């Protein structure tokens, strides 16, 4: 079976926020970082990455600034805004609640019913 998992709808924004919360990143960097922190388990559809970045910037959750990349190319770097940080915290908490609830539900055995 393929070791990469499909993204659940709505999780892309959360992953992007998480990625840029660690360190300012350009778009390609976000892609690599998500791959890295998910230990290659999550593959971002590249066509959706940029619209998502633009949407988050539009919502004031991330801020963009032009800079120079590690191999000296002009690149646009994204950082988390305070609003983005709050959103990430809220989404993380929400996700954890959901995940543990689903895990608990799925781990239920017939004796516990």
């Amino acid at each position, binding site marked *: 079976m393929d070791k990469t998992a499909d993204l659940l709808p709505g999780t892309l924004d959360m992953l992007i926020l998480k990625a840029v919360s660690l360190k300012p990143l350009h778009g390609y960097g976000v892609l690599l970082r998500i791959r890295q922190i998910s230990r290659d388990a999550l593959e971002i559809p590249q*066509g959706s990455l940029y619209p998502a970045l633009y949407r988050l910037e539009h919502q004031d959750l991330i801020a963009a600034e032009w800079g120079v990349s590690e191999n000296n190319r002009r690149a646009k770097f994204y950082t988390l805004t305070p609003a983005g940080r709050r959103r990430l915290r809220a989404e993380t908490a929400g996700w954890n609640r959901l995940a543990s609830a689903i895990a608990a539900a799925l781990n239920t055995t017939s004796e516990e019913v």
Partner: protein
Amino acid sequence: MLGRIRSVFRALTRRRDFEEGMTDELRFHMEELTDDLVRAGAPREEAARRARMELGSLENVKGDCREARGLHWFDELLRELRYAARLLRKTPGLTVTALLTLAVCLGANLTIFAVIDTVLLRPLPFPEPGRLVTVFNTYPKAGVERDGSSLTNYYERRGHIPAFASVAIYRYGKAIIGEAGSTEREQIARVSADFFATVGAGPAMGRAFTEQETTFQTDGVAILTDAYWRTRFNADPHAIGRQIRVDGLPKTVIGVLPAGFRFLSSEASLYFPLASRPEDRTPLQRHSGGNTIQMIARLKPGATLAQAQSQIDTQNANLEVDDPQAKMMADAGFRSIVTPLHADHVAAVRPTLLLLQAGALILLLIGAVNLANLLLIRASGRGKELAVRQALGANRWHVAGEAVVETSLLTLAGGLLGLAVGACGIRLLGGMAAGRLPLGSHVTLDARSALAALAASLALGVVLAAPIVWFNLRRHLGHALQSVSRGGTSGRAAQILRHSFVVSQIALAFMLLAGAGLLGLSLKRAMGVSPGFRYDHILTGQVSLPYKNYPDGAGRVAFVETAMARIGRLPGVLSAGVISNVPLSGNSGKSAAAVKGRIPRPGESPRGHYSYWVGGDYFGALGLSLRAGRFLTAADSRKAERVCVVDEDFARYYWPDSSPLGQRVFFGSEQGSDAEAFTVVGVAGSVKQAGLTDDTAQGAVYYPYNFRDDGDIFLVVRTGLPPEALGLTLQKAVRQIDPDLPVTDLRSMETRIADSLATRRSPALLAGLFSGIALLLTAIGSYGVLSYAVAQRRREIGVRMALGARPQQIRSQFFSLAMRLLAGGTALGVIGAWLAGRAMQTVLFHVPALNLAILAAAAGVMGVVSVAACLWPSHRAARISPMEALAEE
């Protein structure tokens, strides 16, 4: 939220930066990805190909990014606008018609609204204007609706009405300003000390009047308006303390009012204290307002009009307890009314203005219906195209949006043109006596009205799109595709809609036409009223003899004698006279007269009559008719013998069955001693004093001028020349007697009569203009709908003619359709005209709400216009060639 708006705004205003940034960013991504793939061992070309595949179509990504920014809405709108503009350009006839219709209809509304806004809506330019009220005495049963307030009223009320924060009085007047030899007559106002505090705006420089300055001898002070200070004092910063001569007496300037200060519609350029003697303020003078002194008051915060009214009523009741006149005043229905200042000031013109706005709105409605119809017809013409597009997957919202964008573009452009028309209209209205409306001198198109007009045109665009959207979306696609190709009849519902539009248009235009007819007829009837004298070839002008140079009656009589002799010798002068108040002067103040030996009938109240003081050959100069006895002559003013002439209304009221000659009349409401009585020596015809449309038989008494205690007189000259040509000669003649005496308000009697009808003429003219436009619009509407019907049924007509139908039959078929629409519209229009006539009753003069002649005339005009509009389309229908019609498809 704000951040998002900023983000959209930034992206829009720096659109190129946005696009370039996006391209750069995506290119960077591709290069990095390619590099990584090469590093992983792929050949560069293969790596680049894979990178492109991973990212997907660049244009799609960009589109998604723009959408994430909310930019796609703007792109879409721009595309739609371009498309709409192209469509509008493709049908120039329709576009130009629509734009002109909108420009005229919106312009007319804007013009009238600007007047309404200035006169009725905009609050008075004082702090908390809602608290300003006016108080006036009324004696309705004596025929005196409005008598201002007396000095006594003022001094009695000041500080005694808890609901009033302050009370003030004012009196307009004229004064001669300047040194001997270079005098000018200026409009002035005399005001009580607390006047400026009451209105809430006082001198910008210097101070207001004090209480001491409202007593004779200590009233030598003046306050200038900003305009007067600028023009006559060259904006001298040290104007305070300078002396000016007013009616020959020195006055010290103590203040200058702020720029733009204007009390209601007053033209006063100087303010003086309203000074009086203690004997002018006694209870005996309580009812001597005479409508020259007016009272204003400022309500205390939280106090209501009703509280103020009841406090005034209570005070009046208490004061009249020991007043010997109380019974008589009660019989006359005496009351003091408290009413909001602004509403009271504009009350007379309110119904007319609202009526005109209603007319303009109807015009707009006709225009909108016209546009809706024309656009609907065009939408039907594009039915097939739209059906094809929808069949190919065009989204319904998109189709609807397209219509909205197109009509809004049209109405917005029309609205802009309408602003221009409105601006012209306001200037035009300035020439049509709008300036003489209360508060009407500064009618302007302000940014607020302009923005409201543009918003309204945008809203109109959306409304106009509604029938088109409905028509486009409700149609069954397959049917639409077929029905056009088969050349059959269009949707029944759309046809009914079109026809009902035409019917309502005809009805509205009919209503407007009938309304204009009523106003016109009313004006004609008013113009047909005889003023009671021969008004051709009369020149009138006003002279005020200042108290300083003419302190007593002898001096004033001497002036009148000299003036009459001198003016009588001028070439072209037939006769000349003087009178205290000329007919239609705008002053219709009345005073009481008592008849010797008369015991009032039970329930009868004393009456107000016009009182005139005449000198020279006034009766001859005015051309009054003599009913009995003789007129007063110049000689009567030289004698001590007291004689008078009454008019026929007066005679009929007091002596219906006996001769008035030899009867005794007293000036004032009391019967005095015989020595004070005036013997009636003649009866003259009645004169319209207040206006041609004033129907009340008020009654008038003419006394000799030497019994007059006032220096304001009108010169009345009958001439064989055109009266205006005599103006300069008359002024020169007066200056030769007294170089300091200007003659003002020089107008011929014909001009006075015309001016007195301005408030009837201008609305009638405007209504006529509106209905003319409405007729044109209706003609365009009927023509458009009928032409469309002919074009639609071209094939059917062709078939019928091929089968033997005669052109005559085809023509009459379309003609009868037009006539049915006309009949329906007229029937509805008659109902509308009746309702309009009823709403107009207050502004009509001797015209009933439903006048058959006017209805018939309106129907006739409407019929001629409709027939004319239908002739060409019917004619064209009859000339369709069967061969061509059938060969076309």
